[in-house]
């Protein structure tokens, strides 16, 4: 893309440089004209000198501009200005004072080209305008004392050639810039489109994999899992397989903590619990806190399985975000009053670990029956 930008804009610069090279070469030819009236010149050798210097400069100018391909070249521009001033000052000395206008008419095209060089090379800048002013002033001084109305049109010429060059330069460079922009947009669009198609394809493949699992595998596995005639270990394995498949298909929240809690959910099936769960993980707690919370949740579920009789509607709620983790284990079994909550053994051990990490827990007996165990870790102090 950068290469492209370079290509279009550099090519435009190169063309502009060549246009000026042609103008510089063409206008140099006019300097030979005064030599045709050799006898009427006060200093014919001055005219020869000017023509020679100008021709040498034009040659140097052409070679340099051709090679560098740009007019943004201070040496090129200022040399041209200098030579132009020399041509004016020395060239005007070739004629008798009252005939300077005639000689200077032949020198005018060469000097006007310098205005154009300034316009292309320096653009709309103070330096360029100052240089044009100097050209005009030296031009006036050189013609002195043969001042006529034609001087006004000469000075207008310096100004207009400069302005026209500035404007043409701007137009051409704008055009190049727009071409580059259009190409860049087109390329960007191509990339975006390719990216979109890649994503679509990936999504399509994922969908077809999901569909195969969802349509062909899951219903069978679930039916098997729910079959009353199945031996318990196989039923358990089938339930786990179904849960894994669902988690794979929904593809949600594949964080370390979410995985950990999903394992807790799966292990609940092994306890014979018919568990519903809500697991929303936005931000993981630190790994060690996650481990401790998962152990505590596991213990809470173990406890439900052991003590709550034939628990119905056991529900595990887990949410983890920047402001901490909340785990609720809810059952509608026999329930146990808070003062009957076991103080020793695994439960208090893993719950104590929650407290050690800055969390807390409570056991509640809601009016609706059963028990509600809440584990809360408040997040890291920041």
């Amino acid at each position, binding site marked *: 893309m950068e290469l492209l930008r370079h290509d279009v804009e550099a090519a435009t610069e190169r063309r502009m440089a060549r246009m000026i090279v042609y103008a510089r070469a063409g206008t140099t030819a006019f300097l030979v004209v005064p030599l045709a009236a050799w006898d009427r010149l006060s200093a014919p050798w001055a005219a020869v000198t000017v023509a020679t210097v100008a021709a040498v400069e034009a040659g140097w100018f052409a070679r340099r501009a051709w090679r560098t391909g740009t007019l943004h070249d201070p040496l090129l521009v200022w040399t041209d200005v200098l030579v132009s001033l020399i041509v004016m000052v020395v060239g005007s000395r070739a004629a008798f004072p009252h005939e300077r206008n005639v000689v200077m008419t032949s020198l005018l095209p060469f000097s006007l080209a310098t205005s154009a060089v300034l316009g292309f090379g320096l653009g709309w800048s103070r330096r360029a305008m100052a240089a044009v002013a100097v050209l005009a002033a030296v031009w006036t001084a050189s013609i002195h004392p043969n001042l006529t109305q034609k001087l006004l049109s000469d000075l207008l010429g310096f100004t207009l050639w400069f302005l026209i060059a500035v404007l043409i330069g701007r137009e051409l460079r704008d055009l190049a810039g727009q071409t580059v922009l259009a190409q860049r947009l087109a390329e960007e669009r191509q990339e975006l489109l390719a990216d979109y198609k890649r994503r679509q394809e990936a999504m399509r493949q994922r969908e077809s994999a999901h569909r195969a699992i969802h349509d062909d595998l899951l219903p069978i596995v679930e039916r098997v899992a729910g079959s009353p005639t199945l031996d318990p270990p196989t039923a358990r394995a089938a339930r786990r397989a179904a849960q894994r498949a669902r988690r794979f298909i929904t593809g*949600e929240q594949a964080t370390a903590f979410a995985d950990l809690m999903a394992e807790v959910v799966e292990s609940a099936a092994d306890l014979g619990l018919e568990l519903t769960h809500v697991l929303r993980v936005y931000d993981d707690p630190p790994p060690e806190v996650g481990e401790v919370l998962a152990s505590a949740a596991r213990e809470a579920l173990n406890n439900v399985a052991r003590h709550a009789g034939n628990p119905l509607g056991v529900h595990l709620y887990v949410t983890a975000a920047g402001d901490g983790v909340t785990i609720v284990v809810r059952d509608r079994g026999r329930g146990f009053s808070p003062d009957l909550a076991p103080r020793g053994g695994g439960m208090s051990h893993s719950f104590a670990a929650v407290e050690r990490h800055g969390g807390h827990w409570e056991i509640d007996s809601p009016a609706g029956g059963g028990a509600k165990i809440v584990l809360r870790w408040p997040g890291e102090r920041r």
Partner: protein
Amino acid sequence: MSGPTPPAGREPASPTGGEPAPSAGGAAHGGLVGVVDDHPIVSYPLADALRLAGHRVLEPVTAVEALPAGRPGDVVVCDYSLPEGRAGGEAVAYLAARGWRVLATSGVAGGEQVLGVIAAGAWGYVEKRFTTHREYVHAVGVVGSARRYVSPLLAALLLEDARTRPLTGADLSPGQRTALRALAEGDSEQEVRVALGTDAAGLEAALAGAFALTVRRRRMNRLSPRELDVVAVVGCRGLGLKETARELGIRPGTVADHLEAIKRKYLASHPGEKDLSPRAAALRWAMELRLC
């Protein structure tokens, strides 16, 4: 008034052959229950379980288009992934427009898809489970009696929706948040009502309000006609700011503003998408909305 012959002009699809009784006994409600699921292995046992609970259940179908029009009070349990005909939110909207109260269900829909069916007009959502039909029977009873069924998962998702797509105006009230939070944690409706100190109608109003907000959240992220114009020009034709501005007769700054909004709405309606340039967002919209 009513003679011995049933009045003409009724739907022929009556499950028991007779004229629907104005009120059914037990836990069942008065209306019919439809089941749409592409797996007979799922739909027939479910239909049986619902019949056993006293509901009058139509023969399960595999596409929403195969159901007759619903009448007030009719409930349909509709699977999210249906290979035949309409599926997902589109299927729910179709059924709702045909007069059914839709209880959406899926074992594979992600959170966004679940919220999508709620926004499409579902009255509730049940996660597919393989061990029991108890939740379905309960949920159909709830929806049949013109109440929303909010499962713990749906409650959590409604809260999550408020978190990822906050509304600038009125969002979930503290009461609604408390109710949803309690439902997500596994509290029963009875317990939630007690905790909120409200009656069944009060809780239903709160839940219906929460459902309406999911619709509003999605409407908020819909593109305006002008934004659609910008998406078409920038996304499909790949024009730059200035050209787009010229094309649409507006200022380039305005185009840039539209593009920002287009990006914001894309990100807001596609959770999980992260950094995206406005132009990339315009292209994605254009492809998604099939504007090119």
